[in-house]
């Protein structure tokens, strides 16, 4: 009887001990999670804010550049469609990431939200590759049709200078104008050939090489733009000279 009583007592004590031991654990389990949840919520909020900001910036930049593509004159229609399609694909993708960030934030999915945020940079490379490429192509396109218009004007001026007897000062200006247009053509052709084939994966596989291409292209745009400014200045001087040679002296009326 005593043994039985002792066993019962032991079982009761054991059960009580287990209950007593588990009680602090349960209390601990209820106390710590609010701290972790607080940190997690803060982290969630920060990542979500960064994600929303990054996606919004890229959407604004892509929308701006998208409006310019149809106005480009030297790109063929198929090239325009290609670049417009790429921009539209990126806009849709970034909008998808933006939505996913919001959903993961609302679900408290920090891991998913961080992955979403990283994909804005790693998967799209809007600032690393796409926007520099498109803006360089836009600038080279403008250089191209400006050079074409200057070439047309050069032909007209050449005819007028010949009619005026090829005065040496005007033929020198014509020669310089032609040389500058030719050099500008070299510059923008080089920009186009280097930039047109780049993709976001070009940057992922060779970031320094891609950046170097952009730096070189920027330098070529600068040189070509300077050439066209000089050619334009030459043209203005020639036109001024042609017009001034036509002024007739005043004739007193009788």
């Amino acid at each position: 009887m005593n043994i039985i009583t002792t066993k019962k007592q032991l079982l009761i004590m054991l059960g009580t001990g287990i209950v007593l031991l588990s009680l602090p654990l349960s209390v601990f389990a209820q106390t710590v999670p609010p701290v972790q949840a607080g940190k997690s919520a803060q982290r969630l909020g920060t990542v979500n804010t960064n994600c929303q900001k990054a996606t919004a910036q890229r959407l604004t930049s892509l929308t701006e550049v998208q409006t310019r593509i149809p106005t480009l004159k030297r790109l063929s229609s198929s090239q325009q469609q290609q670049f417009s399609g790429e921009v539209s694909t990126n806009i849709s993708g970034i909008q998808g990431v933006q939505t996913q960030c919001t959903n993961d934030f609302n679900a408290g999915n920090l891991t998913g939200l961080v992955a979403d945020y990283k994909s804005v940079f790693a998967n799209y490379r809007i600032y690393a590759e796409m926007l520099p490429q498109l803006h360089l192509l836009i600038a080279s396109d403008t250089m191209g049709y400006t050079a074409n218009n200057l070439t047309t004007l050069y032909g007209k001026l050449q005819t007028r200078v010949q009619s005026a007897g090829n005065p040496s000062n005007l033929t020198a200006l014509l020669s310089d104008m032609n040389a500058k247009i030719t050099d500008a053509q070299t510059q923008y052709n080089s920009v186009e050939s280097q930039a047109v084939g780049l993709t976001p994966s070009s940057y992922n596989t060779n970031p320094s090489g891609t950046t170097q291409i952009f730096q070189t292209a920027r330098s070529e745009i600068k040189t070509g733009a300077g050439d066209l400014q000089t050619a334009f200045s030459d043209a203005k001087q020639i036109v001024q000279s042609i017009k001034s040679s036509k002024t007739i002296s005043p004739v007193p009326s009788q």
Partner: protein
Amino acid sequence: MEEHPANPIIAPIQTPAPDNSGKKSSRPVVLISLIILIIILIVGYKFVKKPGNYQATNNPVPVNQKTVTVTTVPPATPSGTVVVKIDSSDQQLDKDLQGIQGNLNQLNSDQNNSNQAIQNQSQDTQQ
């Protein structure tokens, strides 16, 4: 009181009657003088009004003369018509230049945008 007898020798002095004959004789002279004076004034006035009759002189101005400032009017500039030939081909050249100036302005803007885009590369490369 002593009264003087009537004596023809000592006759009262009689005041001679005024002699109007002399007055009558001086009137024509005065009139003639006035007429001559008026004529001189008229002729002198006309003489003064007539332009170009003055000659510059360094001699002192006599008391009976006055200094007159004469302003010389420069000869009028002959009017004429400046004939400027407006050539349609010249106008076209001006239009071409304006168009190219617009192209260059656009190129400047595009160049700035491409420079900015290359500078913004770091926004992706830092991740």
